[in-house]
Structure formats: structure tokens, C-alpha cells
């Protein structure tokens, strides 16, 4: 039998010590970690973190937290604004000196070695940007993260669909995942992976609609990914403005895809020029 890789503890450990794991899952998880050294070690690490947090000096004072975290010193703002003005002036002067009146497309500044360029476009660089937004689109299937525990009620269609998904058999995965009932616990995950398959199959309109439903459904493990893939679909449709909006929403969630979305938004921003503001830099944290 294969050794456990720690997935159960990664999924249930934190809610378990928070006390938010449903009772039937609590019992399953306890039964598991009593026998599984990997998950037990993970749980011990989590409990050590909890103990350390309780001993760590809390960020508590009479000032409400919302006030403290939202305020940056006025001097920081002033310095930031001055730096931005200087930077803008420097860039503007540089362009005026080097490019003259004939302004090249912004995307041409990308080194040719790093961006795939259409030979026709290369022959006539002034006709359009050297790369198109669709070339930035990341339409790879997102990895599957198992949402359920052993013994928990799992939809048979979902299980079957995800087996197809794991084999990258998108057609069969779509067929199975589409049958997962809306009231099933797996329905949102099913919709997300179904959308990913549609995206992979090139059915971008259907994929975008399903991703949108998942993202609009609110807080879920798939919400951030759904927004990110909405951006990818928008890029694939050569719509950088929409991609920018979705990337901004992804960034706003500050999750695992935040950095990836920021990097991509910088590239997308080149297609948008100065009409749209770039995603703000990561907020500076307040010194204790």
C-alpha cells in the first residue's frame, strides 16, 4: 500500500485545530492521524504554531486594528508620490529623446528572445505589436486538489470525472462532471474543473461562463483560480482589458496566485498603455 503523502492533514489540519471541521470529518481525520505518522507530524507542527502564536506578543492595543493597519505615515505617502513623479518624468524624457515623434508599439520593447514572434509581424514591426495578448494566455489544466476525505460522501460522477481529468481526458471529464448535481458538495469543484476542460478543448465561451459562475459564487477553494483563468480566457480572446480586470481581482484575493497574476498583469499592461493603471504594488506592512 502506498504511503500517505500528508494530503489529509494539509486539507483538514488547520480547520481541525480551529474547531471548524465538521464532526464526521473530525472523527475521520482523528482515526487517520492516529495511524499516519506523516499527517500526525503535520498536525504537531500546526499545534506548535498555535502554541507559539498564543505566546507571541499580540498586536493588541487600545487603537482599533482597522485603524492601525490602514494608516501609513504621511511621510511615506509624500516620498512615494515624489518618487512616482520623478520616475514618470525620467521615463517621459527618455522616450522623447530616443523615440522621437515616431512612437513604437510598447510591446516591441520585449526582447525577441523571450517572446514568440510571428515572422510576418516581425517583417513589419510598425503594423502591430510584436506579440498578441493571446500568446500570454496560460490555458494549461490546473492541478487537481482533492477536496474530500475518505469515507465522506463523494459524488460518483465527480469521482469518475476527476479520474478522466487526471488522465487529461477532457471530453470524458466534461461529460461526467456536467452530471454532478447542483446540490452536491462537489458541484462547485466540478464546475471549475469542467470549465478548465472546456478551456482546454477550445470552448472558450462556455469555459468563461462556467469560470464566471464559480468566481461569482463567493468564497471557495476554486474562487481565486477561477478568476485567474477568466483572465487567461480573456487573453486568449485577445481582450487585455478584461484580462486586466480579472487579474486585478485575482491579486486582490492575495492568495497563492497573487504573484503570478501580478507578473502577468505587468505584461498585459503593455497592451493597455497608459489608459489603465497597473495593479498596485504589494501594500507595505506596518511596523509594530
Amino acid at each position, binding site marked *: *500500500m*502506498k504511503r*500517505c*503523502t500528508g*494530503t*489529509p492533514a494539509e486539507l483538514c489540519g*488547520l480547520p*481541525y485545530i*480551529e*474547531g471548524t471541521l465538521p464532526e464526521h470529518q473530525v472523527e475521520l481525520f*482523528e*482515526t*487517520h*492521524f*492516529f*495511524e*499516519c505518522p506523516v499527517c*500526525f507530524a*503535520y*498536525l*504537531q*507542527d*500546526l*499545534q*506548535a*504554531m*498555535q*502554541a*507559539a*502564536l*498564543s*505566546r*507571541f506578543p*499580540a*498586536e493588541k492595543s487600545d487603537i*482599533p*486594528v*482597522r485603524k492601525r*493597519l*490602514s494608516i501609513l505615515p504621511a511621510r511615506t505617502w509624500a516620498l512615494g508620490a515624489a518618487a512616482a513623479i520623478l520616475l514618470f518624468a525620467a521615463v517621459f524624457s527618455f522616450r522623447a529623446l530616443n523615440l522621437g515623434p515616431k512612437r513604437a508599439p510598447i510591446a516591441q520593447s520585449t526582447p525577441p528572445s523571450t517572446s514568440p514572434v510571428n515572422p510576418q509581424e516581425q517583417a513589419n514591426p510598425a503594423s502591430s505589436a510584436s506579440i498578441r495578448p493571446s500568446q500570454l494566455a496560460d490555458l494549461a489544466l490546473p492541478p*487537481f486538489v*482533492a477536496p474530500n*476525505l*475518505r*469515507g465522506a460522501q463523494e459524488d460518483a460522477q465527480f*469521482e469518475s470525472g*476527476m*479520474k478522466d*481529468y*487526471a488522465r487529461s481526458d477532457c471530453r470524458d471529464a466534461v461529460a461526467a462532471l456536467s452530471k454532478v448535481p447542483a446540490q452536491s458538495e462537489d458541484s462547485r469543484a466540478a464546475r471549475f474543473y469542467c470549465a478548465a476542460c472546456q478551456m482546454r478543448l477550445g470552448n472558450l465561451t462556455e469555459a468563461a461562463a462556467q469560470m464566471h459562475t464559480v468566481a461569482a459564487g463567493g*468564497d471557495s477553494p476554486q*474562487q*481565486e483560480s477561477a478568476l485567474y483563468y477568466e483572465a487567461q480566457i480573456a487573453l486568449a480572446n485577445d481582450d487585455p482589458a478584461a484580462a486586466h480586470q480579472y487579474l486585478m481581482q485575482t491579486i*486582490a*484575493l*492575495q*492568495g*497563492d496566485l497573487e504573484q503570478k497574476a501580478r507578473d502577468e498583469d505587468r505584461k498585459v499592461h503593455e497592451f493597455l498603455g497608459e489608459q489603465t493603471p497597473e495593479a498596485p504594488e504589494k501594500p507595505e*506592512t506596518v*511596523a509594530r
Partner: protein
Amino acid sequence: MGDDSNGEDWMLPDGTDGDQARMAAAVSQGDRDAERAFVERYLPRLRALLLARTRNADLASDLLQDVMIEAICALRRGQLREPSKLTAFVMGIARNLLNSHFRAATRQPDSLDLPDDLPDLSSAASKLEDEERESAAMHAIANLETIDRTILQMTLVDGLKPGVIAQKLMLKPEVVRQRKLRATRKIIDFVRGRSQTSAAIHLVTRQKE
């Protein structure tokens, strides 16, 4: 589940039932080494369970002693009908004691007959490991962004829900959830990295000796 490997993530190592049966049988026959092995195996796990269920280290520690004493006494008396279900038996005792504790207004610590020849239930080695883990976690927490640390403290120490934390910190609940997960992962990775390094150092030292 996504594929077979994901399904097997929940499966237990082979031979678990046999080990349990052997251990239970040995304890019931008065084997003191088996009792020590029993304590070594179940004490840390029960501590983790009780701590998670009570969220109170002192109470968990008190209950832990009661559970261990009751389990050892029951095993000595041969009260375990299916020796291969030792883990389920021990967990059952822990849950029963927890339920009794939460049902009763006050605990009744004198309800157990204390045998004289109990194995050491303090487990100094595991205490040292816990301290090392906690110290590594402390270090990782100190390097977190203030906002992440605040979110974790509000969640795991104050027991606040993401909605409430979001309101206090002027963030969206989704942002709180994501930051909490990311910060937790950072700490766990750090603690694990530390413990692996520490294990490697122990190994090298022992090899040199």
C-alpha cells in the same frame, strides 16, 4: 478523488491491525515494555486530539492523564474484545472522557483507581521535541508580515471567524482566508525545514560517535 493515488492518501500502512493486536495482547499479559511502547505511541496522539478538542493546554493535559490511566487499566484487565481495534478503543475512551467532561459542570478527578506501577506518562523526549517545534514556529511567526500574524492570532488564539477578522482589518473574508492559508504554509515549511536539518545533525553526530 482525482486518481488512485489521491484515494490511497487516506489509507493506512500495512500491518497496523497486527501491531495493535500484538501490543494489546502484551499489555494484557502484564508486559511492562509493551506498556511503555503503548504510552510512547498513544500519548502524543491523544495529547494532540485532546488539545484540538478542548483548545486548552491545561485541561488537555489533565484529561490526557485520565485517558491514559483508564486505557492502561482497561487493557490490563483484558477489557479490549478485539485487540486489532486498539486505536479505536483508545480514541473511544478519550471521546467518552471528553463528553463526560463537557457534560459535567465540574470534573471529578477522583473517579479513577490509580494503580501504583504506571509507566511514566510525562514523556520528556516528546516534550523536548514539542519545545523545538514551538521555538521554530516562533521564529517563523516573527518573520511573518504583521497582518498575516494578526490574522493567525485572531483565528487560532482568539477563535474569530474570517468574517469578523475581515471586518476588523478592513479586508475581504476571501483575503483573510487566503492570507491565513499562505501564512500557515510558510510557518509549516519553516518548521519542517528546521526539524529535517535538526534530524540530519543528530544523525551525523550519532554516526561520528
